[in-house]
């Protein structure tokens, strides 16, 4: 039942149960303590009387008739010696018990009533005979105290419990109010207003911390959503532009009678188709890398050898020389992915290089560094900080045939393989330089394990 209640109700129920248990225990302890104390007072009064009792026998004038205390001295056969002729208080059994030590019993005593305590023990007499002293007193003050105490506790405990519970209800309500406010605001936050934030309570308590943490999460989600939207917008633009040219060329060719003009249109359409194919292929590569962000593979490959192989397959611009330097360098990841890194970097560099592109593989501690540099103009300064973003292109690179996704692919693949990327201008060749750092795999033979990429959608 409890989990169905609100947190406030559960807290209050817990406090109420705690208050009931605490006040009951406190009342019981108080009751026992006070009634025990009163009882001890009565018994010690009886003992004090007993001390004085043997003197009474010699001095009848000192007889005390102060009720509710009754005194008696009896001999071995329970015959009262003082006051003489009185009815014995003790029974036969009690007399035996008293003769062997002490008797302390609560029972009815004639002359006192139902609520009485009897104390008896042997006493010394001046005559030397063996006598038993008996004192009895009313215990009604004790009962009276007990009744009053019980009454007070029975009334006080529920009142106290109710007061504590009510206070807990108010406190819990006040403490949880910010949570309710946050919940109400959270209901209104959606992708249509991603800038909305939860109200953060002041202070540094747990609820303020919760609000702060949730808002930080919303910040991250908003930034991801913005990035996604920007990516979709850019992808849309990049796909629609060649489609628009393609459509336009075909429309113009349809109305054209000149064979040469028609051929020119078809050639242009073919170029745009190639642009679309490259874009589709890059988008698919990115989608695959994104989907398999942690490659489900044990494959490793030689970075240097893969780089040589990738460069051999590329069609390099005329007049550009590619130098590859490096020794065996095993890194995690399937060859296709590592090749993706190298071929994107080298084809980028050779597009901009004047005459030379250097590809070097070097070792830093536990990592291998692939450096691709060229002697071209370098990255435009405004592009440098966002060179690895998707569709980030300097204005000068538009129309060069690139998709704007090459470096983004390098970045995504390197990250998926546990590596890092960095872009800068200047040394070693004065143009653009991109460093890719990948973790080194020690003593592992190259294996060609299959790359398993899980694609959530059937086709992208």
């Amino acid at each position, binding site marked *: 039942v409890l989990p169905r209640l609100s947190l406030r109700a559960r807290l209050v129920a817990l406090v109420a149960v705690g208050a009931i248990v605490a006040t009951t225990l406190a009342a019981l302890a108080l009751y026992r303590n006070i009634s025990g104390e009163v009882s001890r007072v009565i018994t010690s009064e009886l003992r004090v009387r007993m001390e004085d009792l043997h003197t009474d026998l010699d001095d009848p004038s000192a007889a005390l008739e102060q009720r509710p205390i009754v005194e008696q001295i009896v001999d071995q056969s329970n015959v009262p010696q003082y006051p003489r002729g009185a009815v014995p208080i003790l029974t036969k059994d009690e007399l035996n018990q008293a003769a062997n030590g002490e008797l302390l019993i609560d029972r009815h005593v004639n002359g006192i009533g139902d609520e009485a305590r009897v104390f008896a023990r042997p006493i010394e007499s001046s005559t030397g005979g063996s006598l038993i002293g008996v004192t009895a007193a009313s215990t009604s003050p004790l009962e009276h105290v007990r009744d009053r105490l019980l009454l007070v506790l029975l009334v006080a405990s529920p009142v106290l419990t109710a007061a504590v519970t009510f206070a807990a209800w108010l406190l819990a309500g006040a403490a949880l109010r910010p949570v309710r406010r946050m919940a109400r605001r959270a209901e209104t936050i959606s992708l249509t207003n991603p800038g909305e934030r939860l109200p953060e309570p002041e202070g540094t308590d747990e609820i303020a911390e919760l609000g702060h943490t949730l808002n930080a999460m919303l910040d991250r989600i908003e930034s991801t959503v913005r990035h996604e939207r920007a990516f979709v917008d850019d992808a849309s633009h*990049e796909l*629609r*532009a060649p*489609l628009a040219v393609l*459509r*336009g060329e075909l429309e113009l060719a349809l109305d054209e009678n000149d064979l040469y003009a028609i051929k020119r249109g078809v050639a242009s359409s073919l170029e745009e188709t190639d642009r679309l194919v490259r874009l589709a292929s890059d988008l698919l590569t990115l989608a695959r890398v994104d989907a398999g962000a942690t490659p489900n593979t044990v494959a490793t490959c030689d970075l240097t050898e893969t780089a040589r192989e990738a460069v051999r397959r590329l069609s390099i611009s005329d007049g550009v020389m590619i130098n590859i330097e490096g020794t065996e360098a095993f890194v995690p990841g399937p060859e296709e992915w590592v090749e993706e890194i190298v071929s994107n970097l080298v084809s980028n560099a050779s597009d901009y290089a004047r005459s030379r592109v250097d590809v070097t593989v070097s070792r830093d501690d536990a990592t291998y560094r692939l450096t691709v540099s060229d002697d071209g103009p370098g990255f435009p300064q405004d592009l440098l900080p966002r060179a690895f973003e998707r569709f980030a292109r300097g*204005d000068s690179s538009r129309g060069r045939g690139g998709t704007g996704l090459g470096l983004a692919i390098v970045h995504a693949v390197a990250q998926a393989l546990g590596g890092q990327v960095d872009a800068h201008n200047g040394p070693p060749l004065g143009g653009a330089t991109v460093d890719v750092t990948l973790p080194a795999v020690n003593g592992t033979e190259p294996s060609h394990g299959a790359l398993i990429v899980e694609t959530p959608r059937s086709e992208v």
Partner: protein
Amino acid sequence: VTEPSVIETPPQVLVVDDDEKLAGVIVRALERAGFLCRVAASGDETLWAVQEHSPDALVLDVMIPHPSGVETCGYLRRHGFVGPVIVISGRSHPDDRAAAARAGADRFLAKPFALSELVDALEDELRVRA
């Protein structure tokens, strides 16, 4: 009743797109339909070309280098350009359409559009103003 034919200069259109090939295709289509065309590839070039050549109409891509197509359109409208502005865009968010309309664009065409649609739109807008 046909009006006596008057020798008019054909309407001049400034085509703004940083994609040279698309600009070329649009220019060929418009010239075939009887317009005179100039091409600009950025917002700055557009502002300069409008001042220099006073075109009758604009075909304006949204995603061009500084300032953007929408900003360029807004600036031209504030500075007295009254001719038709046909905005073309690779994105077709309702937001983009609304932004273009607010900036004073007459039509919004999402790429890839039919060239005949663009020609019709221009002719319609010019006829309305005539």
